[in-house]
Structures are given as structure tokens and as C-alpha cells.
């Protein structure tokens, strides 16, 4: 009854920072084959690369959220940044086959509020990190068409903390921390077509289910009377699962001029598979909890362009609009979600011997969102978030 710990989900925090080119173009790259990151964005696009690439990089995400409860007093997400990284490589096996490897973190979340903030019984800290490993093969059917597919091996880790509404005689709250990890499998497939200056890519990444079989629940600062009468354990195991939804992307790229290439992407994320989070405590069934999420499938539209500024230098920019999967009534401070506009800029600079450096910056502006009738935890208020992303990468072409 006390425990409605909704593990954070990759909710709307699908992270679109999987390459510097993707980040700087507002996420709009499915219709282009620019470097080895295409392994992730569209496996079929691998076939359209005319040389081998190795890309590695990292991004720093800095989410900033303000929350204003109906009782007043704006509260801010306590400073927390988290990083993602990626590693891609492709190798052209022969005129038909290209191998690619993608290692990245397309889902993740990090929110941390002050421990004694007004929503502490809902969440204090929520973290999700995932690692996707995807070996991929692409096959070039002819000069126009190619297909690609790869299995996805996923490992994920979560951490969740919240206060419990059981008070000690000094007035302090009980505390719950859940930690767990799990593995899952899926696949990524795509087709790619090129018609002169226009290219079209469609990719599908499957649902991945991460089962947390042996999660660790730590109850601390629980009044001794509630431990000794069996209401609460000190430590126990829990089971849960995290669903990472499927994503379908359709991209249309076009060479506009010798120097300018543009791409338009539509993304569809199948969030509706996330109906609720369930937490099972095998040894303490009274603590079992379920939290409805009722996520909705969401669309995104993204437009990006790359400009060959000089022989050595490419400039990129992009803009996107992402629909939030969180419906009214289920907005939660562990995932302060709203429709958002994403703007990215960046560049690649060619060094010597096939090496390039890449940098990008993206700014995500989430619409102010007012939750008036929260159906899970009766936590109402207005949220406003910005997310800043700073990325750096290295590319080797051979």
C-alpha cells in the first residue's frame, strides 16, 4: 500500500543522442547514410556507405525541470547530468555485404529531486541506463535497394529512490531504494532505397523487455516497531520488468545541391506497450505494487540538413517536434514529460589521415505542462523543462 514505486521508464526519455550527426540534425538521419551510425538508425543504410567508418563519441545531457505545486514554491530538479556514449563501426565485406556494429544507449533517464522535496513520496531519484549491442548485416540487392538486419542485445540498470509515508518519532520518513538490472533481446531491421538524388529509409527496432529478476529493495529508516511486527523488511528482493518500446522510422533524404543535403524523418514509438509498472516482492506480498502509466504511442517529426562549408568542414542543423507519450493524469515527476521542440547544431572537421572530430549541441524545450488531476499519486502541479545536450565525437574513415 505504501509502495507505488514506478520505476522510471525510458518514458519520453528516449534519448536521441546516438551520434553527433543525429544530434546536430535534430535526430533526422534515417534517410541518409552518413557514417557508421547508420547501423543503428537504419541497418539497410550500411550498404550505401562507400567506405569503412569508425565512430565513437559521448554526449552529456543536462535536464532542468521546474515544478510548481498548487501549494506554491517552485522546486527545481537538483542538478544532475548524465552521459551517453556510442561506438559504431562498419566493414564492407564485398560488393553486396556490409557488416556493422552498433553499441549505444538509446533509452535512459536520470531525474533527481531534493530528498525532502514536496513530491518525495512519489520519487526522489530515478535512473535508467541501457546498453544496446547490435551486430548487423546489410545486403545490397542492387544499386537502388538494400536491406539490413541485426539482433539487439540489451542490458539495463535501474535505480529508484523515494520516501515512504511511515514516520519515525523524530518526524523523518522511511526510505526505499530499488536497484536492479536485467537483460533483453530484440532486433533492428531496415530497407533503404536511392532514386537519384533522393533516398528513402525505413527502419524498425523491436520491443525489448528487460526482466528484473533479482532486484534489491532496501528499506531504511523504518520505525523499529514496523520492522518487528513484520510490516516492513530491512532488505528484500523484488521483481519487475521494463519495456523498451518499438520504434519505426521513415526518412527521406535529398541532395539539394552540391553542398547541401537535407533529410525529413517521421518516427513512431510504440509506447502503448507500457501500461503499468508492476513490482513484486516475493517475500513480502503485502508490499506488491502496481502503478498505471497508460503511455500512448507517440510521433515525432524531424528536419535536418548538412552543409559542406569547406572541403574540411561540414555544418549541420536540425529541428524536431516530439510528442509526449505521457497522457494527462499520468504525468509524474520521475519523468516530467511534455511535447518538446528539439534544436540541434554541430559540425564535423576533417583532420588528417581519415580522422575527423565532431561536435554538437542540442537544446530541447519541453512545453509547460499542467497536471491537474493526477490519477496515480495525486501529485498535481506545473512542470517546465529544458534539456541541454553537449556532444563530442571522433570519426575514422578507411
Amino acid at each position, binding site marked *: *500500500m*505504501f509502495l*507505488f514505486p514506478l520505476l522510471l521508464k525510458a518514458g519520453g526519455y528516449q534519448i536521441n543522442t546516438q551520434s553527433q550527426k543525429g544530434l*546536430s540534425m535534430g535526430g533526422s538521419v534515417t534517410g541518409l547514410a552518413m557514417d557508421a551510425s547508420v547501423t543503428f538508425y537504419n541497418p539497410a543504410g550500411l550498404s550505401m556507405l562507400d567506405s569503412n567508418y569508425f565512430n565513437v563519441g559521448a554526449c552529456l545531457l*543536462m535536464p*532542468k*525541470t*521546474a*515544478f*510548481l*505545486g*498548487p*501549494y*506554491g*514554491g*517552485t522546486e*527545481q530538479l537538483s542538478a544532475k547530468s548524465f552521459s551517453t556514449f556510442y561506438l559504431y563501426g562498419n566493414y564492407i565485406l564485398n560488393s553486396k555485404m556490409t557488416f556493422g556494429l552498433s553499441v549505444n544507449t538509446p533509452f535512459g533517464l536520470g531525474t533527481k529531486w531534493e530528498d525532502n522535496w*514536496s*513530491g*518525495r*513520496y*512519489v*520519487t526522489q531519484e530515478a535512473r535508467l541506463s541501457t546498453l544496446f549491442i547490435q551486430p548487423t548485416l546489410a545486403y545490397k540487392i542492387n544499386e537502388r535497394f538494400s536491406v539490413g538486419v541485426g539482433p539487439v542485445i540489451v542490458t539495463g540498470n535501474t535505480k529508484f529512490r*523515494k520516501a515512504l*509515508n*511511515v*514516520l*519515525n*518519532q*523524530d*518526524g523523518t520518513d522511511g526510505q526505499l531504494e530499488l536497484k536492479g538490472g536485467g537483460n533483453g533481446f530484440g532486433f533492428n531491421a531496415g530497407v533503404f532505397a536511392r532514386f537519384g538524388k533522393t533516398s528513402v529509409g525505413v527502419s524498425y527496432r523491436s520491443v525489448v523487455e528487460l526482466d528484473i529478476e533479482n532486484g534489491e529493495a532496501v528499506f531504511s529508516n523504518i*520505525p*523499529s*516497531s*514496523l520492522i*518487528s*511486527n513484520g510490516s516492513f523488511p530491512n532488505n528484500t528482493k523484488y521483481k519487475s520488468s521494463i519495456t523498451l518500446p518499438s520504434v519505426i522510422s521513415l526518412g527521406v533524404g535529398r541532395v539539394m545541391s552540391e553542398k547541401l543535403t537535407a533529410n525529413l524523418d517521421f518516427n513512431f514509438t510504440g509506447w502503448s506497450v507500457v501500461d503499468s509498472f508492476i513490482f513484486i516482492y516475493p517475500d513480502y506480498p503485502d508490499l506488491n505494487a502496481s502503478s498505471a502509466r497508460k503511455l500512448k504511442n507517440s510521433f515525432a517529426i524531424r528536419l535536418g540538413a548538412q552543409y559542406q*562549408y569547406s572541403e574540411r*568542414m561540414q*555544418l549541420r542543423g536540425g529541428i524536431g517536434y516530439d510528442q509526449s507519450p505521457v497522457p494527462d493524469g499520468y504525468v509524474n515527476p520521475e519523468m516530467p514529460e511534455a511535447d518538446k521542440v528539439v534544436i540541434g*547544431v*554541430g*559540425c564535423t*572537421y576533417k583532420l588528417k589521415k581519415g580522422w575527423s*572530430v565532431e*561536435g*554538437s*549541441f542540442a*537544446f530541447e524545450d519541453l512545453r*509547460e505542462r499542467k497536471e491537474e488531476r493526477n490519477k496515480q*499519486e*495525486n*501529485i498535481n502541479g*506545473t512542470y*517546465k*523543462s*529544458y534539456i*541541454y545536450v*553537449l556532444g563530442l565525437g571522433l570519426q575514422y574513415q578507411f
Partner: protein
Amino acid sequence: MCWGLDCNINSKSGIGMFLALCIFFAGCKPNLDEPKYTSGEADFTSYLAIGNGFTAGYMDNALTLEGQLQSFPNLLANQFRLANGGAFKQPLVNSGNGFGYDFITQTSSGKLVLVNAINCANQNDVDLKTLSVNDDDKKWIGNQGPFNNMGFAGAKSFNLYSQLFGKGGVTGNPFFYRVASDTGASSGLSSTVLGDAAKLDPTFFTLWIGGSDVLWYALAGGEPNGNQFNTITPTSQFDAAIDTIVSELTSNDTEGLIANIPDIEDFPFFSTIPYNGLILTQSQADSLNLLSPPGISFQAGANPYVVSNQGGGTIRQMKKGELLLSSIKRDSLLCFEKGTPQRPIESFKVLDSAEVLNIRNAIQSYNAKLRSVAIAKGLAYSDMNAFFKSLSKGYVFNGAHFSSAYLKSSVFSLDGVHPNGRGYAIIANEFIRSINAKYGSNLPPVDVNASTGVLNP
């Protein structure tokens, strides 16, 4: 080398500018503007809270400093100050055990606390412990008034204009005695609650009275035993008292709120012990049946407790709808020391059907009166009777789940009748809702979880 934003600048300053820009942007936190709060048609400049222990912030069977600071009037006054509200002075006791008073035994004590204990079945359990009273908290501070919080535990409707009420002790009320501007030492007649309150020139009031008019009858198990204090105020007397009080309070067209009275069944003190809590095995039932007088029988499972009839002598089994007082020691029920034919529960720990009906009828009639007066005077009205009933379905605020049961995450304090801090905060939010609806103000609710709830050992 260049990183993107301004590529005509040389490499080092290009990187520098880019990073500077990023840090500049990344340093920007989102802002949300708080609404502008207004009082609407209400004038909160001088707020008077008048009533009984629920208005005083009485909890855990005592008037304590933390209870007063978390009283609903103090919370309301804090919110009123966001609009045009003024200072709110309470007759504060010292920090510590507080001052409680039992009007049946006419004894004082400190507050209740929960302690770890081993029960009669040798299990880990909790028990209530009464702390000692600090005699300083009984002393007269009436020269420091006037006070905005004029809620006094035990105050009945007609007490509010009584010139005996400030005399303290057995005649008056020890809580008003502390606060009364004149305790009648020279004239024999004290100042009155309404008289002292009028010195505030109130511009807004809350009136929540009538609970004590039935509560002490209920706490005495429906057996006043000649003690006038433990009788139900007759409805005609209550109605007249309300007319007097409200006319006085609204004599300057003062605006305010009237709240009605919850049913006592909605207090855990009367609802925690079930009438049929005698759980027996077949063999226990068989052996009790052997010794039972005619008309009393037992079976395996849940059985009604056996109680004495009023006046003693005869015994009977309880019926559904009858209530047991939580002042029965839990241990005695747990280990069959009470509630059997051999050891019946005393009748003054039981509210039988007739007594429950007396109480229910009185509350219904009081509430009809309170409602009609609120409507006639154009005052805000808060249906606390319905609200306390709704609490039994649970209440959630920012992830904290509350119940109206005893202990655990209850909205009630350890005395099982008065709310705890979070309970008072939930009530304050209900009052704010009624006030906003009536007067067009837009006062925000309070953060319920900023107050304290049940404190567990």
C-alpha cells in the same frame, strides 16, 4: 579547427565560444510564475478561529505546541497572508509534553506517545504511553491576548458565551481559563469566549462547534452518571446557541465559514474494535457454551463480545452497529480477559444501539441547523461530515496514502478522535476550497506532507 558556431573565428576562441555558449544555455533553469493570490470578496485582515479542540489543534489527547502550530486555523492564516491576511496570534503552550484534560475524570496529563511493547500474547506490538503534564502550560496567559485562535478542547456550543467558562477547574474549562482576559477572580464571572474574541474586531471567522456537544456523552459510553458535562446538548439548546453565536459573529457583516460535525463512527476511537472481534476455535466456543447463560452462544470464528447491560447484573452479546470504545485495553481483548460471559465488557465502554441513535440524531439535527444558518447568513459552509466519511475510502496527497483507520498512515492522532498534523492540513485544504468557492478568492492549498503524521517508535 572549428566547432561549428562561428567558423570565421580562429580555432581556440571558436572552441571557447562554443563552450561558453553551451554553458550559458545550460545554466538557464526553467521558470514558473506563481499565480497572484487574491482574497476575492473576503477580508482576511483579522481572522478569528472559534470552536473546540479541533480548532485549537488538540492532538494526541493534549494541547501541544506542535499541535497548535499545525492547527488548521494557523495553516489557514498562513495562506490568508498570501492575499490580505494579517497576524495570527495563538495562545501557545511550551514545547514539550503539552496539556491534556479528561473531562470525565477531571484530571490533566500530557500527550500520548506510541512506544514499543510486548503484548499479552508475547508478540512485538506498540502501546500508548501518557506523558506527564507540564504545570506551566496550565497557567493564565490571558493578559497576552487577544488571541486569534479561540478554540478550546471540550467547548460546547453554549459555552462560548458563558461567564463561567473562563473560571477553569471543575466549573469552567481549563483551556479557556488560560486564555480568558478575566477569569472572574473578583466578580465571580469570567470573560466569555465571544467577548474576548470580539476584541480582535474580526473581519473573517471560522466556526466549528458542536462536536463536544455529543462527544463526551459518547466517551462516557452514553452513561453521564449525573455529570451534566457528559450529556448531549439538547437540539433546542444547540440551535439557540448557534443563533446567538452566529448573530454575534456576523454583527458587522463579518464573513466566514461554518463547518458541520463528523459522525463519531468515523473516528477510530469508536470504530477500531469490531463488535464481533471475539475470534474462537470450535473447542474454545464449546467450552464457553458450557458456561454460558441462556441466550448467549458461541461458534467457531468471529463472535460478538459479551457486555454488561447498563446498571450491571445482566449480560448480553453485542449487536451489529453497536460501538466499542478504544479505551478498552487492547491486551484484554486479545487474551480473552474481556468480552466473555465470565468477564463482560463494562457498559460504559459500549455504545448500544439506542445510544448510537441518540448521538446520530443529535449530529443530524446540529448539522441541519449549522447548514441553515450558514445559508441564511451567506457564509461559506464546509460539509466535514461527508468529508470524514470520504476519508474512509483513503486519501492520497503527493504519493502519501492516508487512511482513517487507527495508527499506520492515519489522518488521526493517537487519541483516535482528533486529527494529526497531516489530518488538520487536509481539513485546512477542504476549508480553503469552500472559502475560495464562496468568496471568489484563489488561495492555494497547503502541502499536507509538510505537517507531521503518526509518529512510530
